[in-house]
């Protein structure tokens, strides 16, 4: 059974941001794409979610690493 989208994104973000900020960030970005509960995120939400996450990661970890993390998320949720 595939890992839920939220779990996958969380695991990728936590490596850099730690579990606390990763969780809060995902909750906030999920709301932005119109999903009040992050557990309800589906593959269809991923492109919009990534669009919002990418600029944040660009600043937090740099553009190159950010692209790797985003590519990982896309690969695992696609």
């Amino acid at each position, binding site marked *: 059974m595939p890992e839920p989208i939220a779990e996958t994104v969380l695991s990728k973000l936590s490596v850099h*941001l730690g579990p606390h900020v990763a969780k809060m960030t995902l909750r906030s970005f999920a709301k932005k794409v119109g999903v009040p509960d992050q557990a309800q995120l589906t593959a269809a939400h991923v492109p919009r979610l990534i669009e919002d996450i990418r600029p944040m990661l660009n600043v937090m970890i740099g553009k190159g690493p950010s692209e790797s993390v985003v590519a990982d998320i896309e690969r695992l949720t696609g």
Partner: protein
Amino acid sequence: MSLFLLRIFLYALAAVAAGTAAAKFAWWHEHLGRAWALFSLEFLLLLVNYVLRRAAPDAALALNATLIAANLAQIAAYWLMARVLDAAGIGYLMSMAKRVILTAAALAVAIALCHASLLAQWQALRSGTLQSGALISVLADVVTFTLVAPLAMSTLALRGGRLSWIFGFLAVSVVGWMINTGATSIAGAFGGGADALRLIRTAGVAVATTFNAAAAATQSFAAHRAMKGAGADA
């Protein structure tokens, strides 16, 4: 190894480590790149200033210019790192009340640590003997020491993640600058003379430079691992 050579080695180490991190982030093109480029510039200028003090103690203009530029670079670098979460648009994750209280507390500590130098600058201003290099140096200390609050808060917020180490190391590097600034009081408290003062100052510089270099190395390593995809299964 003499303290002189040790200090040169420490400044060079920090400049190279920060420069390497800046190069990973396209130098001036990215937020992190700008911060690390400024740290690298700061340590390079401190190195030049330190050598000039020995080699050409009468070169007042060069001494002043390198000291002022190093301090301005230091303020800007710590400022950029302290507001990474804000720049990324997630500064709201840290409570505003906590930020204000901790920053005010850090400012109070900074003023307490720098009060003798601040008073000396005030006296110099009144007597018309103010030196811009010395004034900016004191103000840079106050600003840098105050920024330990957002750095420590970022360390705590990001705990468990790779970035936490970077902010933690930077916060400790600020403590190193505090030791350097408070060296006279520390030496006085232990009844130490000129040698003890020099040793404490060098110890402060050692803490500041090695922890800054550790932060830079951690930043470079984290970027390298992420780009290699080593974090894929972390």
